[in-house]
């Protein structure tokens, strides 16, 4: 009798031990940082470990936000002041890596990704957390800003210094900083032992791993209607970035002005509703989504090729969907009756 009871007790103990180890599940955290809402999903067995990793990420993102903020008092605004005075700026290795990456992306995009037009963006009123509806800048002001034609080609970068031969250079890394921050966040999660996660900052995201035995499923917002226009299952470590004319904008006299400024015209780019890019590196995807949005329906394949981007979906103003072959193979459209053009010539 006693051995049988002992056996039952042993089985029960083992059962409870097995049940007490929770299966992996998604732990979510939301943070207000980088001027947006950052949503982090971690698929992990231990909630405490997941949340501890998120706390480290939050610190990292806050550091990046403080370093590269374009209009609040920050190391970046100090750099801008010094460059405007024609001074050479001393930089650390982290800043060098950041600026070098941005310079390469700008060159590959034919300067359509142009993080030196901070003055122009400020004139449009987008150096504000909360731009009110109001008049756009006058044509004279835009023309004046364009005459100075700042670009990353004006920048001379060494491992310890930064200089500009154009006093009009004013950095604004709005089309790159979020991607860079997401890359840093993902690296931080990996170092903390997290293998499966999504870091979504204001709609742009990078995934690693999977949600257990299935891939992460991402919906891509429709640019003009509620709901999603397409979806994708990410393949491990991938970034999905979209630039759209619906993200930040203001209305004036019946016209809508969004925040993606074409550095060639000085006005909001107007040849697309949105561009979605998939690439393993978030900073590259960020810059590319902006550059390809500005490039528009005719120029985007060439710029994508130069930037090494092979998965692109551009939605034109008439809702025609332009895609690379490789994007078409990956994406699942969630709408019917749409004209689709698949561009075969890709990287």
């Amino acid at each position, binding site marked *: 009798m006693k051995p049988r*009871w002992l056996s039952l007790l042993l089985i029960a103990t083992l059962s409870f031990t097995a049940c007490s180890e929770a299966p992996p599940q*998604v732990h979510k955290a939301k943070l207000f940082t980088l001027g947006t809402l950052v949503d982090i999903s971690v698929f992990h067995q231990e909630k405490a470990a997941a949340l501890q990793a998120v706390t480290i990420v939050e610190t990292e993102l806050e550091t990046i936000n403080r370093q590269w903020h374009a209009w609040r008092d920050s190391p970046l605004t100090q750099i801008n002041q010094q460059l405007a005075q024609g001074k050479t700026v001393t930089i650390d290795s982290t800043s060098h890596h950041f600026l070098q990456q941005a310079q390469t992306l700008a060159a590959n995009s034919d300067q359509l990704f142009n993080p030196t037009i901070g003055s122009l963006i400020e004139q449009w009123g987008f150096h504000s957390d909360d731009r009110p509806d109001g008049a756009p800048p006058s044509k004279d002001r835009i023309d004046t800003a364009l005459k100075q034609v700042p670009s990353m080609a004006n920048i001379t970068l060494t491992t310890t210094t930064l200089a500009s031969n154009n006093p009009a250079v004013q950095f604004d890394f709005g089309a790159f900083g979020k991607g860079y921050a997401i890359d840093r966040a993902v690296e931080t999660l990996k170092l903390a032992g997290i293998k499966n996660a999504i870091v979504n900052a204001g*709609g742009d995201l990078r995934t690693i791993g999977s949600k257990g035995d299935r891939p992460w499923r*991402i*919906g*891509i917002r429709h640019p003009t209607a509620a709901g999603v226009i397409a*979806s994708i299952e990410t393949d491990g470590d991938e970034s999905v970035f979209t630039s759209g004319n619906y993200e930040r904008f203001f209305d004036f006299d019946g016209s809508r002005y969004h925040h993606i400024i074409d550095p060639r015209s000085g006005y909001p780019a107007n040849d697309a509703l949105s561009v979605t890019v998939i690439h393993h590196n978030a900073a590259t995807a960020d810059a590319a989504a902006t550059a390809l949005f500005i490039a528009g329906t005719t120029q985007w394949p060439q710029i994508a090729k130069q930037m090494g981007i092979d998965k692109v979906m551009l939605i034109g103003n008439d809702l025609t969907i332009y895609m690379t072959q490789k994007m078409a193979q990956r994406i699942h459209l969630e709408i019917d009756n749409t004209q689709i053009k698949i561009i075969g010539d890709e990287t």
Partner: protein
Amino acid sequence: MTCADYCAVLFAALLLPYLYISQWTGDEAGISATIMNGNAITEVSLAHDHTLEVDGARGTSIINIEDGKIRFAASPCLGKQCIHSGWLEHAGEFAACLPNRISVAVLGDEPRFDSINF
């Protein structure tokens, strides 16, 4: 087997479904939404119509819940993009008033997507 053995087996048999339910299924029932105010998150049901006044960093945001949908009806920001977002009803949809640091996200039992790109 003795009577005590049968009792032990019965106990284990009854315990198993309880453990399965408590360990392997979510506790979320029906459609709801989370309202995030700063770093505090509150979950609200969308089953009943009501209006919420939420005090944020800049003032009070008014949030309507109606017919299983939720929206920002008023907010102290200048751009009003939270209000332009309109009604949210599908799991995964969200809107935020960043200046007031308040966001609303719709939850579902089994959302189709793990994250939304926009």
